[in-house]
């Protein structure tokens, strides 16, 4: 089974947030609206986080686009009391919205704070509902459950079905999440980390490669290449 991973080259990422918008459109994450956004409840699975250091004029800012790390040793799935979130056989950490009891221990356990909670049932003005992605895997989540980036697992299923329909074996290159496809700086690479000659695994061993909070031992599968 492939072990899906991603590499983001910060030298080519221009923090344009197209990944954030693409992720929302592909996965039907709800609009928070002005009153909920102020409370910090906007659900954006793939946010671009600004990290600022330094005093004027020697200021250095790093803009980190942050999907779920899909750790190989995820602290979030360990603490789930009902196995509502687990790492599937392809290394993607998914959430089972029918079983999640909303205790939110996984949201607190994740050091990257990438898990979001549905405080209210998802709401769109009536007209906007027409643009929702019809794939069953991304039906809007009910209130009271946790949701997170799933590396667009519905695209993986679609790619597998398409390969099967066309009678060829599924290749790792048939599938990429929406954020990788729309990255304006072509900064995101995606593929099977276990396949030695895949671009992703080569880049993950590049001298510029680093991972967020590597010291915590969660083994994140999203590598970043240093800017500059």
């Amino acid at each position, binding site marked *: 089974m492939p072990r899906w991973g991603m590499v983001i080259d910060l030298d080519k990422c221009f923090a344009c947030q197209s990944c954030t918008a693409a992720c929302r459109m592909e996965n039907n994450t709800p609009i928070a609206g002005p009153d*909920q956004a102020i*409370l*910090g*409840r906007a659900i954006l699975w793939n946010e671009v*986080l*600004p*990290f*600022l250091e330094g005093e004027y004029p020697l200021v250095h800012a790093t803009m980190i686009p*942050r999907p779920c790390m899909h750790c190989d040793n995820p*602290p979030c799935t*360990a*603490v*789930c*009391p*009902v*196995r*509502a979130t687990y790492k599937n056989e392809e290394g993607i950490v998914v959430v089972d919205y029918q*079983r*999640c*009891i*909303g*205790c*939110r*221990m996984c*949201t*607190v*356990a994740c*050091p*990257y*704070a990438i898990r*979001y*909670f*549905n*405080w*209210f*049932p998802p709401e769109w003005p009536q007209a906007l509902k027409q643009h929702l992605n019809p794939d069953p895997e991304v039906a809007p989540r009910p*209130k*009271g*459950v*946790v949701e997170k980036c799933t590396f667009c697992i519905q695209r993986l299923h679609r790619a597998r079905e398409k390969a099967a329909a066309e009678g060829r074996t599924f290749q790792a290159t048939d599938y990429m999440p929406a954020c990788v496809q729309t990255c304006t700086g072509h900064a995101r690479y995606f593929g099977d980390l276990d396949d030695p000659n895949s671009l992703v695994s080569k880049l993950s061993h590049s001298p510029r490669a680093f991972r*967020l*909070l590597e010291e*915590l031992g969660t083994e994140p599968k999203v590598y970043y290449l240093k800017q500059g």
Partner: protein
Amino acid sequence: MHPENKHEKLILKPIHRPTTSDRILWFILGGIFLLGLSAWVRQYVIGLGVTGLNRPVYWGVYITNFVFFIGLAHSGTFISAILRIAGQGWRKPLTRAAEAITLFSLPFGVASILADMGRPERVFNIIFFGRYQSPILWDFTAVGLYFLSSIVFFYLSLLPDIALCRDRLTNAPDWQRRMYEILALGWQGHPEQFHRLEKVLDGMAIFMTMLVVTVHTVVSWMFGMTLQPGWHTALIGPFFLLGAILSGTAAVVIALAILRKVYKLEEVLHIGLFNSIRKLLITFTLGWIYMMIAEHLTIGYGNMKEEMVVLLDKFTGTYATIFWSMALLVFGLPVLILIFKAKNNIGWMVTASILINIGMWLERYIVIIPSEVSPRLLPVMGQGIYLPTATEWLITAAWFAGMFLLYTTFTRFFPIIPIWETAEHLPEIEPEGARVAQTAPTGD
């Protein structure tokens, strides 16, 4: 036969038909409780958005209440079980009052968890799909077992007194007498029964002590097992345990003082009792400050970046006022009051205990919220803000009101002071029986 106890009439006096003041009190407490319940139903229908919780502050006042109520639950076990093992006779009059706090705060601890859950109707998933790797399952087991054990422990030690009420309170309304009849399980007060009861209670006391230590460490491991800065420390177990014992004992003091005042039980709950508890309270407060210093010194000295963000947020940042007022409330004032003012002065003792408990609630708040506000990866510009909303305060008030309601109704129907334990001597064997019954181990 029943044990002779000179204070029997005094102890049984509170058990009478509920007066108008009772009804008013129950009405008020019941009202607050129902209000909180309706707020919870509204929250369930609309969604957890009505609370102030957000990202990254996912746990707030509800979880603080949960830890606080489980902390209160330590009072009963500590006073009755540990002191029973230690053979401290002076504890006898206050055991039932203390165990009652345990019994009536535990359900509201569990209720706080239910109020915090996103999908409470799926709580049975924990049984069907429970995974033992999750600290929540440890919690569920430990708190569940502790709740079960404390019910049984409480009921067993109540058995002889129910039988006494069955026989003495002939003028009680017949439904109440029928209740005594059923609950007494046919207890005749046979010395052999008393002997076996003492043996069982001693056995359970040991089990309960071990259990209470696990319960609160397991509750703290719900935080300790995550990688959040400020939570992921080995000391969080003992820290919470000592905090719980301190807040439990303080709660017992408050309860006893109120009972003493309302039911005029001065002879039974004499000053000496409070003086010995005062010694305990001082040791626990010092123990608690030791834990605080140990934790914050280690974190501060270690000076790791993300830990320092949380620490400075507590010391000088947005939570400085709460933190320092909490330190003052739990340690600063109470220790001074207890040492200098509280000797033979129940009034001061109660103020110290009230301060301790308010401080302990804030202490749980201060342990939970600042760590969540600045998680490891969220940039400073993304930090969370958390302002509890009316729903959360309403449900908190309701759970406290519920606890007081249970406590007051209990004192109206059952003797709050254990008559058989504080009796001069238990019923002897009848003369024709050959065997000689030793007196119950009531060594002082």
